[in-house]
């Protein structure tokens, strides 16, 4: 706990910012700037399209702003609190709309400019769609763990704080999720 690592430092910084944000809105802007990309990335991979990801991300920040007084710094970092809100709103979105299996992976736009040959671009996009489609078939918890680990670059301990699990349990969950994806890919290869 008292390791004083970078995560610990961020936690303290965030705690101070949240404290200030309860009095001055400029401090909330600092939190917003810091975590917009993180929240958007998580939501984007959970819903699969930009439009819904923007709507949900907007809701996450408004919800956080309105209920900021409810956030108590009791060891859970602010980023974990935000991601929990995001997780709940995404779960509502999946529940309310019957779009769970209709996420338009096909129309997912490239995440970055790819200057290689058109064939390579097509191949890369094909591969990406394949992975995203497989990710969609995983249970919600596994999707969440993989997105937080690889898209957000979070440590096992930090993911545990979001998901309410120990670092060890997260590690096992990620490993199992990767095994599932690996099996899915292997089955696809077999069918070709």
């Amino acid at each position, binding site marked *: 706990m008292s390791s004083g690592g970078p995560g610990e430092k961020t936690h303290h910084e965030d705690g101070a910012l949240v404290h200030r*944000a*309860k*009095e*001055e*809105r400029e401090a*909330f*802007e600092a939190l*917003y*700037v810091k975590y*917009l*990309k*993180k929240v*958007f*990335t998580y939501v*984007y*991979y959970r819903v699969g399209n*930009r439009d819904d*990801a*923007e709507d949900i*991300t*907007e809701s996450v*920040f*408004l919800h956080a*702003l*309105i209920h*900021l*007084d409810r956030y108590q710094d009791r060891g859970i970092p602010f980023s974990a609190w935000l991601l929990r809100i995001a997780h709940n709103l995404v779960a509502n979105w999946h529940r309310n709309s019957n779009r769970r299996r209709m996420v338009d992976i096909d129309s997912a736009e490239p*995440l*970055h400019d790819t200057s290689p040959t058109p064939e390579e671009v097509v191949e890369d996009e094909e*591969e*990406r769609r394949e*992975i*995203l489609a497989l*990710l969609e078939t995983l249970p919600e918890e596994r999707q969440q763990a*993989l*997105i937080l680990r*690889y*898209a*957000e*670059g979070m440590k096992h301990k930090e993911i545990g704080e979001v998901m309410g699990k120990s670092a060890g349990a997260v590690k096992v969950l990620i*490993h199992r999720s*990767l*095994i599932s*994806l*690996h099996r899915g*890919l*292997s089955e696809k*290869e*077999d069918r070709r």
Partner: protein
Amino acid sequence: MNDKGLREGNRNGGNPHYRDTLRRVKDCLRPVEPGPEFARRLEELCESMGARELFGNEGEIGEEGGHRGIIIGGAIFSALPFVGVAAYALRKHLLRRRVIPLSV
């Protein structure tokens, strides 16, 4: 994990390697930049909402503080007669015990 992955990959023969799967997942799941237009719009929305909501909260806190003041004030005011009685009893007690020097 990697050793286990290697074993698993080898068992699969020509199929994608476990480590290859890991690489593909990492390549696929990259951070996504929100559109600048959306980011600006949301920032403006937060600004306007923030001012109102935080002001509202301060008002609530003020109201709560006011209630608390009334309760504490009431308690002190209610206790005053007892404080008076206690002071009177103490004075009597002290007077009774007072040693009056007698002139020799």
